[in-house]
């Protein structure tokens, strides 16, 4: 926090500013910082408490008054999840869901490319149709989608879990926005060299679209890792549960076993937090750019 005051002075190098005004400004900066730090601490309490409790033995969690830092640091809860619960299976399923959602991302990119770079009959109308799907609330489609999947005999299968959320209108929209800025000459040159249309897409468009692919890739990973509703509805069999469905099962079956639950939550949350920390600049800026256009 030490450089806080310094920067605020640096930012306003007005010679005529009186010492008093400078002092008020720096005081204001400090107050703002302290308010935000307090707010930030409050917001982080659930995370802090979750991680701390995950490493406590079950006995210590039941203790009143609670300990803050684990007295007896243990990994028992985590080993328990994988050895006695089915978390290995849940993790495998979650990874499958994530990988499939990357296929969906590829399909979105393809559609976005066609909407951006080809002239074809019905382009505008079809694109509005895509955008219209964003307005439909999930609760309206929830039941019919289940009935459709049931009719296709896809309930209780991995395909049934993955298909409903595979493509998304917003993602197509973002790809289209980005790809329409790519100059046509680049594509023409490749075509003159005899590249097929698909090759143009895969070897020219995709590499140029790296920034948007990165943002979408991270968001796709997060969404896939967190996927809950469709696995919950479609999977009857524990063999198909994802981590979040498994965790909600754990909450139901081991309601009093808080250290175990916190370990499960930590296992779900920490990878996302790490990925987010690493790529936060891209995500937040990607959001900013796309959200405001």
């Amino acid at each position: 926090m030490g450089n806080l005051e310094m920067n605020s002075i640096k930012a306003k190098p007005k010679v005529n500013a009186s010492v008093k005004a400078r002092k008020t400004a720096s005081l204001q900066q400090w107050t703002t910082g302290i308010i935000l730090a307090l707010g930030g601490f409050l917001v982080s309490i659930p995370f802090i408490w979750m991680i701390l409790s995950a490493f406590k033995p079950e006995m210590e969690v039941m203790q009143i008054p609670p300990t803050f830092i684990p007295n007896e640091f243990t990994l028992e809860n985590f080993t328990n999840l994988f050895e006695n619960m089915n978390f290995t299976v849940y993790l495998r399923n979650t990874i499958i869901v994530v990988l499939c959602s990357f296929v969906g991302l590829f399909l979105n990119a393809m559609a976005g490319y066609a909407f951006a770079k080809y002239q074809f009959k019905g382009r505008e109308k079809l694109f509005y149709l895509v955008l219209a799907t964003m307005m439909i609330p999930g609760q309206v489609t929830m039941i019919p989608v289940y009935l459709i999947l049931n009719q296709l005999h896809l309930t209780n299968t991995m395909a049934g879990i993955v298909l409903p959320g595979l493509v998304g209108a917003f993602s197509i929209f973002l790809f289209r926005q980005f790809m329409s800025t790519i100059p046509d000459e680049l594509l023409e040159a490749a075509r003159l060299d005899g590249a097929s249309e698909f090759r143009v897409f895969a070897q020219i468009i995709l590499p140029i679209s790296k920034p948007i692919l990165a943002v979408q890739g991270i968001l796709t990973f997060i969404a896939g890792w967190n996927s809950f509703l469709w696995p919950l509805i479609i999977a009857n069999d524990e063999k198909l549960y994802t981590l979040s469905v498994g965790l909600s099962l754990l909450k139901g079956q081991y309601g009093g076993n808080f250290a175990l639950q916190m370990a499960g939550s930590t296992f779900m949350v920490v990878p996302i937090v790490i990925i987010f920390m690493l790529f936060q600049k891209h995500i937040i800026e990607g959001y900013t750019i796309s959200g405001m256009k």
Partner: protein
Amino acid sequence: MKAINTKTPYLFIAPALLLLGLFSLFPIVVALVISFTDISLEGLGDWSMIHFVGLDNYAQVFKDPIFMKSLFNTIFYVVIGVPLVIVCSLAIALLINFGKSRIFRAFRVIFYMPSITNVVAVAVVWSYLYNPQLGLFNYVLNWLHLPSVPWLTDPTMSKVSLIALAVWRGIGVNMIIFLAALQGIPKTYYEAAQLDGATNWKQLTKITLPLLRYAIFFVSITTMIGWLQFFEEPLVMTKGGPLDSTTSVALFIYKNGFQLSNFGYAAAGSFVLFITIIIITLLQFRLQKKEVDY
């Protein structure tokens, strides 16, 4: 320009459009059709068991005490939750934007974090925090010599507790939108105001807030639509209890569809929700227009 095979663009959009059509557009038609039938689990296996019942489902849903309760709960969530989310995220965005040091960037990450973490994990953690005997919240209250709060067991308090969780999750995204809008305000406005000796408060109320009007409108529409569909928090935390006091309309639809298998009835409920969302959104656009006109 070289003639491109006219089929190519269609091949590129086909997979995505087919999936969107099958899982987003077609379901609307299906939902509308089945909302006029009595389709249930038997009807799934044998279509001859499905009967056309006209508007019966819609008439019944408005007589259903649980639906009316869920409607009331949803209004409760929206009326308290939406303003809270907007005020909190706007306040945090203003504070972060006011800070000049680089350290303020770290706060963006901290406040954004809750919105990307898994809802089940978050609900599990908050259930523990809310636990009447072992939870951290009651422990802190008792430590401050305040009485324990029945976080999830009292009908009204449980709604408030769920709102607290949802506000915590909802701040991040809106804060980012507000920050983007704040950064779009030209610095010259403030410089001119400072030359005229305007205080910070004057600058906030006369420059910043009026210029944020569009962002505030955008956020309030999206937040409102989101909260009308309030669903995952009560599903995981309370399953709608105690005594349906936390059941939202969306959860009502889910329960009727997937736990009671009254697919037609649930579809009717979902159309009531859909139409409500459309009407409220249109009303907001109307109000916004009036404001601009004056």
